[in-house]
């Protein structure tokens, strides 16, 4: 054990020793911390889609709509999780070209990346990604368009439910809309280091 460790812990103990009473943790309820209009939503997907749109994300329910969106944007070369590609392949006609391995040396070649989500949160319009389900962290981040596929049964209604069910995974990330900044004069610009377009694609089993 390092000297710094012992020194810091000794100082902490000395600092707290004079306290006759230590502040107890408060009792608080999840319901008070959930945004209005969340728990009474009838359809979690509908609420998720509404809140995702509110942060400039794009919810889609049909693969054909995804292909149309990519085509309209001129994004015709990308990456797809090899496990998802057999299901999606037929929807992507020429001139689309898709790779199922992400080569980081050609990071600028990929205009879109399609990976599987671990879940979603309706309350905030967030997609949940994890190491176990994301075939490549870079492919879900570096291309201009990121598409996360999602099933209805993966949607948590609210943040307390999503926190309670955090997977045993070394890396879980909630993605709430496209990457953005307001550093320059407070003006909102999307697509800073991550995707400028964030898509959630509902894919039923």
């Amino acid at each position: 054990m390092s000297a710094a460790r012992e020194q810091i812990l000794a100082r902490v103990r000395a600092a707290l020793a004079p306290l006759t009473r230590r502040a107890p943790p408060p009792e608080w309820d999840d319901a008070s911390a959930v945004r209005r209009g969340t728990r009474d939503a009838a359809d979690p997907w509908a609420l998720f889609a509404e809140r995702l749109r509110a942060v400039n994300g794009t919810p889609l329910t049909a693969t054909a709509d995804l292909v149309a969106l990519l085509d309209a944007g001129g994004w015709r070369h990308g990456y797809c999780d090899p496990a998802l590609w057999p299901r999606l392949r037929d929807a992507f006609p020429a001139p689309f070209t898709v790779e199922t391995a992400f080569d980081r040396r050609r990071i600028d070649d990929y205009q879109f990346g399609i990976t599987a989500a671990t879940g979603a949160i309706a309350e905030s319009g967030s997609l949940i990604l994890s190491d176990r389900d994301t075939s490549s962290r870079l492919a879900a981040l570096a291309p201009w368009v990121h598409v996360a596929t999602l099933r209805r049964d993966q949607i948590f209604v609210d943040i307390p439910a999503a926190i309670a069910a955090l997977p045993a995974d070394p890396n879980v990330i909630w993605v709430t809309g496209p990457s953005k900044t307001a550093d320059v004069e407070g003006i909102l610009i999307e697509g800073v280091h991550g995707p400028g377009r964030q898509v959630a694609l509902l894919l039923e089993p």
Partner: protein
Amino acid sequence: MARQRIDAYAARIPADTRAAVYLGTKTTHEKRTLLLADHFADADRLRRWAGEVKQHVLENLDTYLPQVEARLQANGAQVHWASTAEEACAAVLGIMQARGATKLVKSKTMVSEEIGLAPYLEQRGIEALETDLGEYIVQIDKDHPSHIVRPIIHKNRREIARSFEREGLGAYNDDPETITRRARQFMRHKYLAADVGLTGANFVSAESGRLVVVTNEGNSRFSLAAPRCHIALVGIEKLVPRDRDLVLFLNLLARSATAQQLTVYTEFISGPKLAAQPDGPEEMHVVFVDNGRTEVLAGDCREILRCIRCGACLNVCPVYRQASGHAYRSVYPGPLGAVLSPLLAGGNFAEKADLPKASSLCGACNEVCPVNIPIPDLLLRLRDRGKREHAAAAAAGTPPMGAWARLASSPAAWKASLAAGRVLNILPLGLIPVPALRAWVAKRSVPAWRGGEFRKWMRRRTRP
């Protein structure tokens, strides 16, 4: 009477900078208030709970610190401890040297500013690149952040465009979208070339050892997707007891900081990447930094350690809005900085003893604080300390109160002066020989002196 340094600084700020800071902070503050009221029936209660959770953590750090260390180690992370800024910088350098690493990409972390990490590493031949757009601009300009959430709130697009041109990022173009795209293109190849990604942590769960890092730009995610080694610099006060507590803090942090429900990226990291995952760190280090925090914990201002660095108190503060961040001569500006900076200064407290006076004690900082820190109370305690320690900086800008104290502690002298004050009613105030006072009264109507009336009224009341 010497002016307070912060006043002197504020007087020199260019008008357009002041206007930008004022507008930026005011807009964010107003959006924050509307959003909280719109989303929650009782947002105030959430603030109080969050404050109580953090106070509980602080007063039980002797339990939580060893607990989180054990969890992190069980998760496969290596834990380091640093008592001072120098030790923290040396720990990062040591980890890098052990791997033969020479390039580091850095996500925005206030504690790295506090310990001066980037200059330390650069002096030792390590490339340490800021990846947050605002922090990158601060770095290439050899400037300092002036706001903890919006580091370049004091700069305009023309200055930024000139800096980009100078750094070879393309011909002059001050369109914010072009500036952002150029940074995107430049930075992604830096991430790929980097050996180490460095982040801070907004929260660390003692229960699970999960580090939570939030950003909007995605730079922390990139720093954890391309490099093979992750170093997290974490102040020892960043703990929360359980994962569940993150519900409160995540809900409050983004709304308070930028009036967002959540930041775009909220990342929960509990160890090196999964073996099957092609991207990300194979090695994870967590450096717990004291750098004066245990001294603050031992004192009577320990509530300031609850701070989650959202910047809401900066945005609402009438002094910050006029003076802007650099006026505080510290990494942490605004009301939180006026408390924390003198405390973290340790033996140099006297040099920062004027900062607790940079406040009208209006209390707005406490009202917006997501962890309900009683900042005005803490400012008063530090003013008291400055006075007791005879810090010259604490006396600047304060009129001498000795004569007043003598007057107010002698009933006879007090009564006589109340009566004598009536002479003000017949003096021509426009002829006051002090120009500043003359200017003051020229724009205002001075009420008639009625010294002693209250005493008369009291006598009539108590002896009818």
